């Protein structure tokens, strides 16, 4: 809940439509039917968000040590 509030307050929510759009278009370039496209898009969105969370945690850790 706190994370969601933080994301909303920090304008990080702007990443959500971008990730959704990128995932759907990328999935659509690899499959023809809507079912596999959505499955691929879901997997891709999960991967992208996980990657960004990892980068976020690394940067937050560094900043915690610096400040």
């Amino acid at each position, binding site marked *: 809940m706190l994370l969601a509030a933080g994301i909303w307050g920090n*304008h990080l929510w*702007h990443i959500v*439509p*971008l990730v*959704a*759009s*990128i995932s*759907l*278009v*990328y999935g*659509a*370039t*690899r*499959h*023809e*039917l*809507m079912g*596999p*496209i959505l499955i691929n898009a879901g997997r891709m969105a999960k991967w992208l968000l996980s990657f960004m969370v990892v980068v976020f945690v690394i940067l937050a850790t560094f900043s915690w040590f610096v400040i």
Partner: protein
Amino acid sequence: MSETARTADPDHVIEIDLRSPGIAALWAWLWPGAGHIYQRRYGKGALFMICILATFFFGLILGGGHVVYASWTKADRRWQYICQVGAGVPAMPALVQSYRVFSRKTDPIKVFGVEGFMAPPTPQPVRPEDGSDKLAKWHKDYHFYFELGTLYTMVAGLLNILAIYDAYAGPVVATPEETDKPPPDSDDPDAESDS
């Protein structure tokens, strides 16, 4: 001349009629999703159109209609437009505005009530001290939304490049690792007899 493509999944082989791939690619560039609709691939056409155009226009709105502009002067080389023009016609008004401003030395057209919609920041060269630096003013007015809008519109243009390729050649062939299925065992005697 009509051409066909096949999907890579061996369990669900689909023949896709690409019609004229070159024309489809041109349509796909001009208007995201139009190439697929031309090929009668309506579902994917709608998906590309909604995703790419929504991303493009959302970015454009975030930046107040100023994030897409064409300028290649010494003071302002707008390399981002190279990515944005991938979205096709939706990014074209920037070329018209650029032509009016730089070549005809006239005022840009007012579109949707927005002064300088998709027009390059003028006058050149810039003079920040007397407030004539429009680009700096846009950054000040829109804060980080200007960069965010630029990012959205650039991503939309680049995504349409993928859509153009899909219209031209069909879905990209997935590598074995991506299919989530083990590769066929070459030592399997049944597989040998099938072939």
